[in-house]
């Protein structure tokens, strides 16, 4: 045909035939096997299937579950239900190579191919650039997967915040506030909260029995809940709480946000817990919810043995050495609709370490990059006039930009060279 397909004349690995037949070393044989284009194509097929099912899985699973199980894993167990597109509800699962594994082999295949066939000439420069760009892209996804940290900063107008919440990790926190100068915190990760479980071995003078844990919930005022349920002709769910905030609010379990949900929502875990003293006597059953944190409600307090403890379910926090203050939050909608036109937050960075104190405007598509982290306008405060900023630390954030430029230029060179030579012959006199 033409130079468009340089290797089409010889089948699998052309370089093997071009060289005089000496006895190749074992390393070279292995490299050649690894570098085969057949391996590449097989890997593409496998990757295609993985991405396809990784999309189907999001019909009933949260996007992060899927990312961790399918794409950031060596082996994934694909449920049979997903394999058959949710048409049949069959138990069981099939093992399948995951993203790390396929990406790894693909990388090895690519590097081996270039190790064997490496030669620098103008015709191959495009391919070389494309493939180097792809290596950068794969590494960037690896770095993101391993090191990127995402969190959220929620600030009500005129207030400020110095911590980031990680909404994929909730924790049950018991804070000893007896001494107003020093808080003593005992925190239990939400992953160890399960219905009916009793947490006895905590460094606390009492045990905590988890009555019900809800990974995502709606919290209603009791009066609203009665109206809500009677309007839907359903009975009120039972309310196990007998003390604190649970006496005026009720939490109702809600399904988790799946990857294919058209609206991105924040998941709000809640839990009903009973506090048991040494003799197993109840000190009260409480409703703890991340929802209360949003409302800046003072957490429920219990007194035991002359000490005061505050109970809360909150998102895991990490503190920053600086404060961000929300001066004004603007939220415009298109006339006559609820479709948001733009959000923007006028904030002030107050950093005692560097002495900075300056105003910044954060809006959609205009993030603030500060001290290795990026603050994006994410949403409006769900319950008050305020802002939600997405906070991301990703050491590899620049890599995709580099990779994109490399691959695109590479493709333009590669296809452009062939196109010009094709057109030259096509329109040759």
């Amino acid at each position: 045909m033409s130079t468009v397909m340089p290797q089409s004349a010889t089948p699998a690995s052309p370089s093997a035939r071009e060289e005089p037949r000496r006895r190749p070393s074992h390393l070279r044989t292995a490299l050649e096997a690894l570098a085969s284009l057949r391996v590449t194509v097989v890997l593409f097929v496998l990757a295609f299937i993985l991405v396809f099912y990784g999309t189907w899985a999001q019909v009933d699973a949260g996007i992060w579950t899927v990312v961790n199980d399918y794409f950031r894993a060596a082996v994934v167990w694909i449920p049979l239900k997903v394999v058959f597109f949710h048409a049949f509800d069959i138990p069981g699962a099939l093992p399948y190579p995951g993203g790390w594994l396929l990406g790894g082999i693909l990388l090895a295949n690519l590097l081996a191919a270039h190790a064997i066939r490496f030669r620098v000439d103008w015709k191959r420069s495009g391919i070389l650039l494309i493939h180097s760009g792809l290596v950068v892209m794969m590494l960037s996804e690896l770095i993101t997967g391993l090191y990127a940290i995402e969190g959220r900063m929620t600030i009500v107008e005129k207030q400020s915040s110095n911590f980031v919440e990680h909404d994929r990790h909730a924790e049950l926190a018991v804070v000893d506030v007896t001494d107003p100068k020093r808080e003593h915190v005992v925190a239990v990760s939400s992953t160890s909260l399960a219905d009916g479980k009793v947490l006895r071995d905590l460094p606390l003078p009492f045990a905590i029995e988890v009555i019900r844990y809800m990974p995502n919930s709606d919290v209603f005022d009791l009066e609203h809940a009665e109206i809500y349920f009677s309007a839907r002709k359903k009975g009120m769910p039972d309310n196990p709480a007998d003390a604190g905030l649970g006496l005026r609010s009720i939490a109702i379990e809600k399904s988790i946000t799946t990857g294919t949900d058209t609206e991105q929502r924040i998941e709000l875990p809640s839990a009903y817990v009973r506090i048991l003293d040494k003799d197993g006597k109840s000190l009260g059953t409480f409703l703890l919810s991340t929802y209360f944190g949003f409302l800046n409600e003072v957490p429920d307090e219990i007194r035991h043995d002359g000490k005061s403890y505050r109970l809360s379910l909150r998102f895991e926090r990490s503190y920053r050495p600086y404060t961000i203050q929300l001066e004004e939050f603007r939220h415009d909608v298109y006339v006559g609709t609820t479709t948001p036109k733009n959000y923007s937050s006028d904030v002030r960075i107050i950093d005692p370490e560097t002495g900075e104190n300056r105003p910044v405007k954060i809006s959609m598509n205009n993030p603030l990059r500060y001290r290795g982290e990026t603050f994006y306008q994410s949403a409006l405060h769900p319950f008050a006039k305020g802002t939600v900023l997405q906070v991301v630390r990703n050491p590899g954030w620049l890599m995709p930009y580099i990779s994109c430029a490399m691959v695109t230029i590479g493709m333009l060179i590669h296809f452009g060279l062939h196109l010009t030579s094709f057109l030259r012959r096509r329109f040759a006199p």
Partner: protein
Amino acid sequence: MNKYVTYLPWTVLALAALFLASKVMPASEPRDGFHLSEFGLLPMVDRGRIQPIDTKARTALMVISGKQTFVDAKGNTQPAIRWFLDALATRSEGGGPALEHKVFRIENDQVLSLLGLEPRSGFRYSLAEIRPRAAEFYAQAQRARGVDPKKRDLYDNKLVELAQHLEVFLEVSQWHFLSVPVAAKDEQWLSVRDAVQSPHKVSQAIAQIQLELVDAYAGNDPTAFNKMLKTYADYLDREIPVNVGTARFETFFNHFAPFYQSAVLYAFVFVLGCSFWLGWREDVRRSAFWLGCLALAVHSWALFARMYIQGRPPVTNLYSSAVFIGWGCVIVGLILEYIYRNGFGVVVASATGGLTLIVAHYLSLGGDTMEMMQAVLDTNFWLATHVTCITLGYTACFVAGFLGIFYILGSVLTPWLHNDLRQSLIKMIYGVICFAMLLSFTGTVLGGIWADQSWGRFWGWDPKENGALLIVIWNALILHARWGGMIKQRGLANLAIAGNIVTAWSWFGVNMLGVGLHSYGFMAGALRWLLVFDISQLAIIAVGLTPLERWRSLAQVPQDKPTAPPKGPSQSLQPKAVPTAS
């Protein structure tokens, strides 16, 4: 060469120009003397956009009946604005001509039997016909609405759909739409209902004028109506100069319906292109090519007109993506035709251009296609380039797929695809796939960059991103398999056809996964069409897998064919072509 045939391209172009001119002509004002088109120019707000009432009337009627015109009791075709005015003139006690207009499209037999109606040609019914069993219908619709959208069956969906259509009518007939500006600056609009009680004197007056305007219409008093219309336009100009700048242009755009006209032209191009293959002369091909160029010009004008009216980049939603993909397909097809001159380019251009415009037509049944976008989708360099690139990528995939279909069906079922033609088809497919690879990769990565700019996440593995990635992987797979010699001509064509399935999945299928919002009406039907499309593509691939000795084009040596189409210059270029396909 016959003298008359030489002029064929010019004749075809002249006829097409006449056709277009007839569509550009403004509609004559109705005989009863109401200045309907002037009324259509009045401003209002819908889905966050200031627009002429004409647009609202057309989109509302489109949602309800699937057409922008209706047939009145006397059998005359009437414009949407007439239906709109009739609806406005509906009195609460339930009189008025709007009740008699047969505009509600109901094709589901169960819904029809619930309403006690017989299926009729066109499936359009009037409110007066629906009314006797309305109570039972509402009870059923209420039940269907209570069902989780993911669990609704077809009947439930159709009930909900009709209930929504009735609500569209109610929104108009009860004056719920926003037609009264409050003050020019703060972009606040009220419905007439609210404006009547508003403290703003000017808004109150505007609402009053609008009510009287419709009273004059209902009282069949054209003189009063036209006078009132003039008064209103002047008053609005003086008190609250609403920026309607593009209103006149937009009504012209609505009236001309350029996408529809270019779809009609593409149909003719397709017929001409196919007749060329059936042994007709080179002039037919040239006519097809130039007619294709004219259709493309109309299509492009329409695309830019939309951008001008909306003030946005070309692709803002699924509808505009269809229009844009079609546009790209036509350009690629015509370029291929210009290079190869063998008729494939025009046929691919017209088939893909026409089909995507039909898809766009069905997508427009959802309502105004120029709705405003979510804040995060607001114009941004990365987003605009991402969307443009990725849709062009879809385009290239479809063009390659359709060329693949020609290759397979042409070689298996007909004796006409001789060796040289097959060679050049394969080269076309290969080149287009290279483009598809470039565009879909760049588009996908640009999307990642945009996501990084707006959410701080370059790649999130969400369904839409995965869909784009699937296209990239698929194209990479085809190219590597080709370079590795694992596939030859037949394999390339078959994989390119499978690429149609992959692309359709990314474009539509992914949206259908997120049921809930999208399960209503169109999307449920679209799923069926997607499946039909996929099955048809698989069937063609199956045809392509038949043994080579059954391929009719391979059965004979090219020179023995008397029926071969005239050769373009392409065929002399392949002296070293090998006469095998697989």
